[in-house]
């Protein structure tokens, strides 16, 4: 073991080493030689997972800016799960589409390093650095199919708007620094608790700019416009990663900043987040209804899910007990959503071919007959996204709504449940296609690769486990909250 001040960065180092190993392996790989590069990534991720488990409850801290608290570790574990599932889904896809394997896996792993850093950072500047690390990797991944016009366009759009939002974020940091003379969250928090008055325009500017920056990253309305285009243009495996890993990491940092450093300003930001949450839930579901491209549909669904998370954030601003429930609800929701969404995008990725993405709704017609196992597993994922028992998605939503009702936000909870009914409509459209529509075209879809099916089966088992016996993981989530806020 190294000196204790390194403890908290061990998970990151594991993943980063794996990324470097991947790059080295790529350098030694013959032109068409097959090499299980993804396996290196899985080794690194498992190492990070083990490190996170060992660090549990130790409250380690590195360099004063990275905290190995349970909150960060919980998110780290979520990211590790997302990463491993993604490696499994990627293997066959990378081979099929002829993506540059070394770059693909290395960028993915570097992005995960950025995500873990973002979830564990306790300094605004480090959060920003993490944000850039993960964003640059993900921009590149979005456009990794250089022959694809849509992919290039998506990457460019994503990059421009991402850079734009980074500027907002940085501006927010500047104001916070200007007020408190520090970028460390605890110092900023102390300043806001002691000396900020609600009518101080600089304080309001700092809060507002940071809010906009985060809202971009988690694609909350009205900063969501980039999402559908970027999600649609990127390869499906990358989209699955963007919609879960990036979102989980960004939301973790969002929650950490707003519930610790900016918590004293919560009477100011709560009404705004309330509005954003309501708009995000409504726009995400209502616009999702009319989509005919599956990736676009799931893009809007992921916007709606960001809305439910924001609902949790609003409730987390409430008094002690309910606030605790809301915070652990956010963590639990992130876990359920991440597993489900990665799996759903994995299905889309597996059904694509090199020539065609096969991600239009009509491509799924008759899937229940041609790919019965795949369709059944996809159905479970969709039902979980819709929040129907006994799946993980239901428990996640229930947990969030419990917190919202407990905090007295009945209106927001009602908007939440009603939009989830609307979302049922578009998730079931996919099910209708798979099971109740005959396949008209002759173009048969390729059978799903075994590795992907295994990953999918693991996800579905996890979905049922979290849906039927959630108590233990819920306790874990609750325990991660006590340590930081």
């Amino acid at each position, binding site marked *: 073991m190294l000196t204790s001040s390194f403890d908290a960065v061990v998970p990151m180092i594991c993943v980063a080493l794996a990324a470097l190993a991947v790059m080295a392996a790529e350098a030694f790989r013959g032109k068409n030689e097959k090499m299980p590069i993804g396996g290196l990534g899985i080794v690194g991720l498992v190492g990070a997972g083990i490190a996170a488990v060992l660090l549990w409850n130790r409250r380690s801290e590195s360099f004063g800016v990275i905290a190995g608290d349970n909150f960060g570790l919980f998110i780290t574990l979520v990211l590790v799960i997302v990463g491993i599932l993604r490696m499994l889904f990627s293997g066959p896809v990378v081979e099929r589409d002829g993506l540059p394997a070394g770059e693909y896996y290395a960028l993915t792993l570097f992005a995960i390093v950025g995500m873990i850093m973002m979830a564990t950072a306790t300094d605004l500047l480090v959060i920003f650095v993490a944000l850039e690390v993960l964003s640059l990797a993900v921009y590149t991944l979005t456009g990794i199919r250089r022959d694809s016009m849509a992919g290039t366009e998506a990457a460019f759009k994503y990059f421009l708007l991402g850079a734009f939002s980074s500027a907002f974020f940085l501006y927010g940091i500047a104001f916070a620094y200007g007020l408190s003379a520090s970028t460390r969250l605890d110092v900023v928090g102390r300043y806001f608790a002691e000396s900020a008055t609600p009518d101080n325009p600089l304080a309001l500017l700092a809060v507002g700019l940071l809010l906009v920056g985060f809202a971009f990253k988690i694609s909350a309305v009205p900063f969501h416009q980039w999402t559908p285009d970027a999600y649609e243009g990127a390869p499906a495996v990358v989209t699955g990663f963007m919609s879960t890993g990036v979102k989980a990491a960004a939301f973790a940092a969002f929650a950490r900043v707003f519930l610790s450093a900016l918590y004293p300003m919560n009477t100011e930001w709560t009404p705004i987040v309330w509005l954003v949450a309501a708009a995000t839930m409504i726009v995400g579901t209502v616009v999702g209804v009319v989509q005919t491209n599956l990736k676009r549909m799931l893009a809007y669904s992921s916007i709606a899910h960001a809305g439910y998370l924001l609902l949790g954030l609003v409730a987390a601003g409430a008094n002690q007990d309910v606030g605790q429930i809301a915070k652990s609800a956010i963590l639990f929701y992130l876990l359920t959503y991440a597993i489900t969404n990665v799996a759903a995008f994995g299905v889309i990725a597996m059904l694509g071919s090199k020539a065609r993405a096969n991600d239009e709704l009509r491509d799924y017609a008759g899937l229940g007959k041609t790919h*019965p196992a795949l369709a059944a597993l996809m159905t479970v994922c969709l*039902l979980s996204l819709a929040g*129907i*028992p*006994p799946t993980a998605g*239901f428990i996640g939503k*229930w947990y969030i*709504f*419990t917190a919202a*009702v*407990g905090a007295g936000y*009945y209106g927001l*909870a*009602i908007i939440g*449940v*009603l939009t*989830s*009914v609307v979302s*049922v*409509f578009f998730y*079931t459209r996919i*099910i*209708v296609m798979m*099971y*109740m*529509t005959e396949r008209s075209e002759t173009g048969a879809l390729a059978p799903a690769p075994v590795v992907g099916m295994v990953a999918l089966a693991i996800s579905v088992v996890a979905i049922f486990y979290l849906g039927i016996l*959630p*108590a233990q993981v*819920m*306790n874990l989530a*609750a325990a991660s909250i006590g340590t930081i806020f």
Partner: protein
Amino acid sequence: MPLLSLIVALPVAGALLLLLVGNADGRRDGFVRWIAMAASLAVFALTVLLWARFDPSSADYQFVERHAWIPAFGIDYHVGVDGISLMLVLLTGFLTPIALLSSWGSVAKQVKAFSIFMLVLEAAMLGVFVSVDLFLFYVFWDAMLIPMYFLIGIWGYDRRIYAAIKFMLYTMAGSVLMLVAILGLAWIHSEATGSYSFDLEKIQMLTLAPRTQFWFFLAFALAFAIKVPLFPFHTWLPDAHVQAPTAGSVILAGVLLKMGTYGLVRFAFPLFPEAATYFAPLLALLAVVGIVYGALVAMVQPDMKKLVAYSSVSHLGFVVLGIAAMNVNGWSGAVYQMLAHGVSTGGLFLMVGMLSDRRHTRLISEFGGLKGVMPRLTAVFLLITLSSIGLPGLNGFIGEFLIMLGAFRYDPRFVVVAGTGVILSAVYMLWLFQRVFYGPVTNPKNEKLPDLLPREWCALVPIVAMAILMGVLPNLFIRPTAPAVTKLVDRIHAVQGMHVEAKPAVAPIARQGN
């Protein structure tokens, strides 16, 4: 022996077993059908055992099982049955094998998936009736939607997808608001006692403010009213019933609709007695409108299945009227009518399905003079028709009679209008019977129709036997429910009385209802 858990788990076990049977080419269809049948018959045997070991003199939950599930929120796996739920468990156990049997002739594609969904559906319905924990109840309540959605959507008739989605969205829209109310109750419990609880028995101890009761009752009642369905929330029902495969319709009409009325009896009224008293006249009014409206619309239907579907709107109106009367007669009648309607409407859907299997049409005008061609079916159809109308000596009479008795005590005006519903039901059912079975054979296609097959006999004999048994020995079914009904009705009145004395402010609300 954890009898209730066994009853709920057995169909799931059967479904899991079926998952393991490889049947991609449909060669093992027969085997699959027998496994499903064996599982559902075993469940029925267990429900009968439950009935035999049930103590009919007690009003408490029996066969109670309780295990911590999500301790942080006081959520327990808490199941138990009182007389009311016992009867509905029995009904579910009774109808599922019959519905499965009816599918042997009509469902030919994807038999394995069909059987799995039927078994999962059965488990969810049984779960709804035995849950004493609100969270557990909601989980089963919502989980039930998925298998039914697939049953309608895959094996239904022409407009099945529309019907399936409509069914799903309507039901969910109602139930999510109930979820918010359930969460609110758990929260109020935690404020009052310091700990969360979703346990029905604990939540019943709370004293809720009238305003809270008002909103929460509305949320619960809306969920149940859509399920029943109470006029004007009934529009999903004709679509779902008509498009569903026969087995789906039997379960839909036989059991699923009762989940709505059961919810009113078990949750909405006892949890929010003051609000219930306040809203009872409105519920009774809607029920009576539904009785007459359902009957009138049924009368003009050209499609047999649609006719039976609308007759359900009318019959379920009676059940709600009985519940709104809030007295022992009304509630006993309502519970009894739930069973009776399940048996007779289940039987009607079965027979309409048999005719439609033979002729691939359900239009009344396509038939006529079947009496000469299919005398046995005619006889059974007549008997079930009479039971549906409410002929004394058969199952339909007792329930309607008790409900009217109870409603008369509550407000005679409702009974006057509801009475016309009884007459109208005789009109539409007998007219249907006349057009389909009497007269000469007008359509040559009907001349050679085979009469009841042995398999169809097996499905219909239990229905007929039950219809007669319930008519001749009604006490067999009323007696076990009596203590539970009395307890719940007393509870509603006790809370009312207490508040009238303690808080004069709510007295007008209470009086309005009487």
